[in-house]
């Protein structure tokens, strides 16, 4: 028996998990739809199972493009993410099956998962960037496949990720030049992160695009609301969370700027989420806010003595976020699937007709808003606890700016989920009576909800997966009185806030209906909205970035026009440096003379 188990376990421990998923993606194209989705669910589940089997260390070492690379690098962080991907990709595959997703789309989704798993298990910068770029391509294909509006959005998505990927590629090359190896742990027992200086800057920007750094985030709410609902479930979790992991790989010891940027993202994302009426767009802004918490956790490691705890908090939050964020996209997807409506003001009273979707939404919302008993409470609490120890810019109550940002983000999150739930499920009575979730969707949502609850209650099993567990687990008491009080205050503030600001919110959201159309006026009104603590400074930055992007886009789409404005060329004859024989020979003569002079006298 043991021998059989070992025989099964051995290939599982040595063959990189992305191979199964890639294989499933190919199979998907030839087998019938239902069988294909079953294979997909199995292949992705295998990723989760394998995560437990692969022992810690480096495997599948090989040479790739002429360099030492590691395709299977297993440490607590990669294991954590692989488990998360295993669970949610399986659920999402089932959800796709239940949502009439075409099988080609699921095949694209699987290739996207496969490259995600590749990034997670990469043990060196080279194979990481390889899978990273592949992720960009496959996810673009996933968006594109839906057609319609998604195509233009996917185009912008591709450009954003093309630029981000290239920046990161630059970082990797610079890193190699200074360290002379691509391995994460080059010459050291522990990974040392990306080389400081230019490499770190390029990496921060490149990964920042995928993380949705403020001003680099515009692709996020632009893209995720548009494709097929099942595609959104895939997209919503993997790109951004993988970016968090890679950010951790680049800055394993944290950084101050990362912590405060994370805090700012939490507030910024939550604020903009609050203004949305497209449910998937609202959720997309929350991705930015939640990634903010994760980065704050990872970044805080540099600021406090209990570094391991902060890092673990950030990664734990990423793990939990994978679970509840996809759950939320599933629940919202069911509503869109059944009603075809993408504006929550046209919905209402659905809790009676769609109780299952409502329950799933509720679990997701309670998790993301960090209500005790759900997994978000555990990990967000860890991040806030870590921020509690930061004493760099103390504000009120002796708490640091970072802490206040995270709390404010938390309140905003809570408010926006009350809003979303209120509009979708209550808010008058339903005049439509759509059916509830399909079987596949129910299974998928049950799976995801179950894990949200499980890790909220049995948090010990989450703790043991986290890095540096031995250092901090003994002191971690998530359900202490202090934490519960804090949570209660936070929740109360959220309720009060929503009650008070519901009307002004409606007005504000009315004038800021669509970020794409009215970004610039939105920024103008944002300036007035001091209530929300958004400063004019952000607005200015946002405006500048928006206009830069707009002018870059103009340059890209009509370069000759730009050249004409700068005074080169005319309408009739675009600039082309066309010279005749005489001038060509003149230049040639000078070049020969120059070359020989350099050779002789150099």
């Amino acid at each position, binding site marked *: 028996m043991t021998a059989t188990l070992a025989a099964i376990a051995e290939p599982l421990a040595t063959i990189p998990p992305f191979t199964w998923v890639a294989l499933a993606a190919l199979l998907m194209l030839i087998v019938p739809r239902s069988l294909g989705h079953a294979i997909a669910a199995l292949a992705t589940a295998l990723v989760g199972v394998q995560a437990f089997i692969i022992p810690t260390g480096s495997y599948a070492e090989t040479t790739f*493009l*002429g360099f030492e690379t590691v395709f299977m690098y297993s440490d607590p962080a990669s294991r954590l993410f692989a488990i998360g991907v295993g669970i949610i990709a399986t659920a999402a595959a089932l959800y796709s099956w239940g949502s009439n997703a075409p099988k080609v789309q699921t095949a694209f989704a699987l290739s996207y998962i496969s490259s995600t798993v590749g990034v997670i298990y990469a043990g060196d910068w080279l194979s990481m960037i*390889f899978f990273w*770029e*592949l992720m960009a*391509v496959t996810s673009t294909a996933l968006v594109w496949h839906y057609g319609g509006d998604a*195509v*233009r959005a996917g*185009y912008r998505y591709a*450009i954003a990720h*093309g*630029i981000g990927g*290239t920046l990161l590629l*630059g970082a990797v*090359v*610079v890193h*190699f*030049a200074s360290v002379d190896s691509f391995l994460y742990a080059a010459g050291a027992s522990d990974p040392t992160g990306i080389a400081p200086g230019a490499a770190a800057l390029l990496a921060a920007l490149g990964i920042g695009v995928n993380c949705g750094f403020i001003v680099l985030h515009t692709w996020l709410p632009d893209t995720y609301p548009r494709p097929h609902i099942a595609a959104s479930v895939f997209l919503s979790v993997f790109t951004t969370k993988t970016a968090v992991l890679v950010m951790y790989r680049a800055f394993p010891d944290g950084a101050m700027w990362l912590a405060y940027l994370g805090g700012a993202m939490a507030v910024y994302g939550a604020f903009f989420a609050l203004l949305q009426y497209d449910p998937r767009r609202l959720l997309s802004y929350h991705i930015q806010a939640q990634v903010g918490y994760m980065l704050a956790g990872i970044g805080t490691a540099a600021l406090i003595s209990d570094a391991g705890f902060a890092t673990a908090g950030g990664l734990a939050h990423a793990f939990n976020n994978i679970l509840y964020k996809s759950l939320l996209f599933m629940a919202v997807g069911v509503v869109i699937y059944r009603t075809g409506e993408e504006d929550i003001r046209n919905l209402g009273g659905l809790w009676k007709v769609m109780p299952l979707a409502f329950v799933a939404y509720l679990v997701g919302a309670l998790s993301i808003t960090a209500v005790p008993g759900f997994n978000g409470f555990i990990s967000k609490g860890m991040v806030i606890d870590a921020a509690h120890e930061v004493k760099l810019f103390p504000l009120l109550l002796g708490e640091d700016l970072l802490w206040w940002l995270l709390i404010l983000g938390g309140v905003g999150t809570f408010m926006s989920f009350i809003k979303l739930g209120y509009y979708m499920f209550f808010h008058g009575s339903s005049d439509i009576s759509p059916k509830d979730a399909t079987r596949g969707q129910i299974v998928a949502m049950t799976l995801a909800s179950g894990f949200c609850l499980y890790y909220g209650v049995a948090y010990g099993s989450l703790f043991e997966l986290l890095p540096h567990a031995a250092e901090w687990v003994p002191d971690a008491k998530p359900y202490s009185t202090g934490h519960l009080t804090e949570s209660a205050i936070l929740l109360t503030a959220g309720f009060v806030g929503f009650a008070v600001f519901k009307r002004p919110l409606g007005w504000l959201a009315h004038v800021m209906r669509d970020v794409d159309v009215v970004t610039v006026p939105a920024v103008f009104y944002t300036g007035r909205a001091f209530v929300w603590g958004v400063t004019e400074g952000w607005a200015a930055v946002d405006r500048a970035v928006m206009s830069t992007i707009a002018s870059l886009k103009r*340059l*890209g*789409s*009509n*370069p*000759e*026009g730009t*050249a004409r404005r700068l005074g*080169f*060329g005319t*309408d009739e004859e*675009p*600039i*082309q*440096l*066309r*010279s*005749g*024989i005489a*001038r*060509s*020979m003149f*230049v*040639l003569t000078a*070049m*020969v003379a*120059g*070359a*020989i002079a*350099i*050779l*002789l006298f*150099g």
Partner: protein
Amino acid sequence: MSDVFLPLLVAIPIVLSVVPLIAGLRYERAGWPIAFVGSITVTAIAGYVAVTIASSGRLIHALGNYPQPYGIELVGDELSALVALLIAIVSLAVLLYARTAGPRGNAFYSGYLLLTGGLFGVALTGDMFNLFVFLEITSLVTYALVASDRTSGKAAYAAFKYVFLGTVGASMYLLGVGYLYVATGTLNMRDLQEAIASVGYGDPIVQAAFGFILVGFAIKVALFPLHTWQPDAYTYAPDSVSAYISALVSTASAYALIRITYGVFTQSFLEANDLIVTAILVVASVSIVVGSLLALMQTEVKRMFAYSSVAQFGMIVAAIGLANETALFGAILHLLGHGLIKAGLFMAAGVLATAYGARTVTDYAGLSRRSPYAVGGMTLAGIALIGLPPSIGFLGKWFMALGAVEAGAWGVAAVIFASTMLTLAYVFRLVEMLYFRSPSAARTDESAAVEVPDASTDGVAAPDGGSIDRVTVAQVAIVVSIGITVIALGFSWELFADYLDPVLGRFFA
């Protein structure tokens, strides 16, 4: 014994080139079948030679049984075999494409065969003066082919300009060879390598020789600012000819530059003359940036691709100047990849021009719906041109950039990076037009919209869903298969690394 295939590669197309003219007296359409037979034969031989070299090492054939340095020898090593294979494959592809696309006439097919033979000569010869002769054969035919569209005066002017720059370039090369002869008394490449080493790398005659040869090839590969012949030639030549010469003619010259720099002057010469290396890197970098920028500015698609070549060859020359194994490996990959990519792009542009009269970026609006396969092939080739992985373009740029970093030439790495961004911009501009614009929107969008040339008015393509006339399935199939090939080759780096290992080992002994 396999070495007898080397002269056959050169001789078969050249001897066959006489046949279309003679047969043409009786049969009007004799040219294509003859060229086809020749092309298939040399492709098979080139493939066989490449495989043989992999197993048994480089082949050397002494012509007329006069060994070097008394006679002329043909050298088939890993590098020249790959270039020969590229020549054979692209020739065949272009020939299949040209069957319906034209230009017609037996003289064209004679020229085509001569050009193919000449290119094989350039790839295989091991003698400096013999290289000159073959360079001139290829140039001469190229001039004529550029001007083979007899209705276009611009094409004739482009060819005329090319005659001057091309001939002076070749003459500069010949002068360099003369200098080397004065310094050493020999013309055989392998012999020269030792002779130059014994004369010394600081000898003014040797230095000047390198200067002449370098500038000569800089013209031939169209390095900025000596590129002035190239955009006109590529733009106004018939589509089949553009595809052929953009893929092979400059490629053969760049190959020759690699062979002479590393096989004759050697890496030690570059090390001893570091200022010229700096100059090469500066000029090549300027070429990369200016070429990319000008490509971005163009409205005419073929001219855009032409300027893109200026940038790509800039990269290859920069990699040659970097003088390390990684960069040169990248340069060779990019040389081969660029040949395929540009052949594909120009043929795709030809298909779209034939079918819809589309020649400018604006004309391309919404063509993906009308010609999904050709546009798909073009897009794949475009992706490879940008250098997105996986594609042969990525491998080339990657290793060149890596070589630059290894050599500490940060500027070159940055320039390659910047050029990638610019390439991204102009290729995506095309892709956006092709896929995301509807024809009418593009018209109103850009005031400078150019009216569709007359070509489309004579009966092709109704505005919606019109069928493609005059474009054959074979043409589209070639474009698509090139697109797929350049992407598929993105997985091949290990194959190339193993294959090229011996020759790189000789260059960097």
